[in-house]
């Protein structure tokens, strides 16, 4: 079932495979860990894997950064600017959601004294 062709294909798109693996690791943390902060760290790992996936799709073989300078050659090959722009904005949104979630957790810890999801379920 697994032959040399599939291994070569996986090696050529190793970034995608790593992104998928990171996604599964983050999902595992999100499901298994009882601590809310650890759950949110899992969600952040998932976000990072999506960033890696999208930014990898913008690579062009032999491309340079999409900036016109004095040393840019005549017919330049640039990498794709759109995934970079998308991820640049997505990172900041990730920071915003993290800040909001952490502030909610601070308030929750003040009120209930625990961040364990199983204990919080029993509290009502």
């Amino acid at each position, binding site marked *: 079932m697994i032959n040399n062709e599939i291994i070569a294909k996986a090696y050529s798109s190793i970034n995608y495979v790593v992104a998928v693996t990171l996604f599964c690791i983050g999902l595992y943390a999100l499901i298994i860990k009882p601590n809310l902060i650890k759950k949110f760290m899992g969600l952040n790992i998932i976000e990072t894997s999506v960033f890696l996936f999208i930014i990898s799709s913008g690579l062009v073989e032999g491309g340079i950064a999409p900036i016109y300078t004095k040393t840019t050659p005549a017919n330049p090959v640039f990498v794709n600017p759109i995934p970079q722009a998308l991820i640049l904005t997505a990172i*900041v949104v990730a920071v915003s959601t993290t800040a909001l979630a952490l502030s909610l957790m601070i308030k929750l810890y003040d009120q209930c004294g625990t961040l364990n999801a199983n204990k919080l379920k029993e509290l009502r």
Partner: protein
Amino acid sequence: MKRILTFFILFLLWLLMVSAVLALPPIGSETTPVTTHVIPRYLEQGVEEAGAENIVTCVILNYRGYDTMGEVTVIFCALIAVLAVVGREDPKLHTSKVDLVGIKESVIVKSVVRFLAPFIMLFAVYIMLHGKESPGGGFQAGAILGASIIIYTMTFSYELALSKFFVKVRTLMEGAGPIAFFACGVVALFYNQNFLTYIIPGLDPVTQTAMRSLMIEIIEVGIGIGGGTVISSIFLAMEKVEK
């Protein structure tokens, strides 16, 4: 048991997703759908049309200006939500847990931070102003600026940081990103052009490009100042405890 079951299901999901990504075009080829539609136009005409040598800045602030404007508003809304949940800090009432416990940083850390903090802020200003023609821009500058304020607060005391970065001044600066974006975008509306196109008809092309570059620069500065103060305000509001 639950762990083993979850692991098994996630392994099946992993196999499914790996088989899906292996069917995608390989990384680095020029013929993937991602690189074929609008990218050639952006790369060839971006400098004239959008007014920045850095094509990523062109895409962020001009071609996809609506996206970025909404996203700057998202940061601002995150700050408002955090302040609604935990509340704004008050120098008279609040201090940080580190100050209460009384952990003393070593002399080496304090000296290095005292020496480096101004240069980190200077670097943030450099990144902010050079987003047009080199890697950088408002968001990165905001992150560096916020990080410098955070490292200052962690090393010295919370009260010292509050006496340097006043609440009232930060309140005025937090909205700088959306305000700069809206102010520059709305100029074109007065000349019957579309929102966020930065077009002023009746100017010769050179002046028009210069005008557009100036507006992009203003937006970068606004995003940088706004982002930095928002990050530091979120940090300072979450760090506080009652005295």
